[in-house]
């Protein structure tokens, strides 16, 4: 099973966890990515996400297929915010459930890495004065 959601509302960890819960799965790994208050010594007040939604879902489905082909994993979830997200709020929740934890950890790390490489989502950092589109590895 899988659960992909792009939302302009607060993300719900419990909702992600319930998608992943399964009597066959001894391990659930959840990653919660929150908006940090600084970058490169500048105060960040919020992030603003733009999402190419239909393509984002297609790319997430490809990542899910890659995960299923590489690890013994039962469920994959990725919930991501769009629009403005203030400091301290969650921008992304990624989750994996699997019979055993090692595979869940690896697959969850892979899910987040691929999210940042291929899923068409862009973030803008909003500072006290001004804003800037984030370029990866900057």
């Amino acid at each position, binding site marked *: 099973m899988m659960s992909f959601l792009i939302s302009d509302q607060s993300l719900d960890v419990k909702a992600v966890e319930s998608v992943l819960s399964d009597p066959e799965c001894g391990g659930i790994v959840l990653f919660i*990515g929150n908006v940090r208050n600084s970058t490169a010594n500048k105060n960040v007040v919020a992030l603003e*996400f*733009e*999402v*190419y939604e*239909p*393509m*984002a879902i*297609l790319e997430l489905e490809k990542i899910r297929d890659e995960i299923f082909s590489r690890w013994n994993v039962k469920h994959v979830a990725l919930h*991501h915010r769009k629009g403005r997200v203030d400091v301290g709020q969650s*921008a*992304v929740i990624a989750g994996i459930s699997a019979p055993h934890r090692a595979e869940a950890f690896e697959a969850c790390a892979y899910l*987040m890495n691929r*999210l*940042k*490489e*291929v*899923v*068409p*989502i*862009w*973030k*803008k950092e909003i500072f006290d004065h001004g804003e800037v*589109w*984030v*370029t*990866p590895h900057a």
Partner: protein
Amino acid sequence: MKVKILAFGLAGEVIGKRSLEVELRDNTDTDLLKEHLMLSYPDLRGLLNFTLAVNQSYITSAVQLRDGDEVAIIPPVSGG
């Protein structure tokens, strides 16, 4: 033929809008479209490594465009 262009992130700012329609000669491919866009919006040249998606799929080399295609300008992604 007409093609719908979507411009995301910095590309949307450079172009000044998030979506537009362009009229192209038949048999235009994505390389020609890129040239066309960079002539119309010279600031796109500053966006060194944007890629294109045609009908919600990344292209790895030039593809022929068809009437009604949706082409997205994809600057480096930065989700998460």
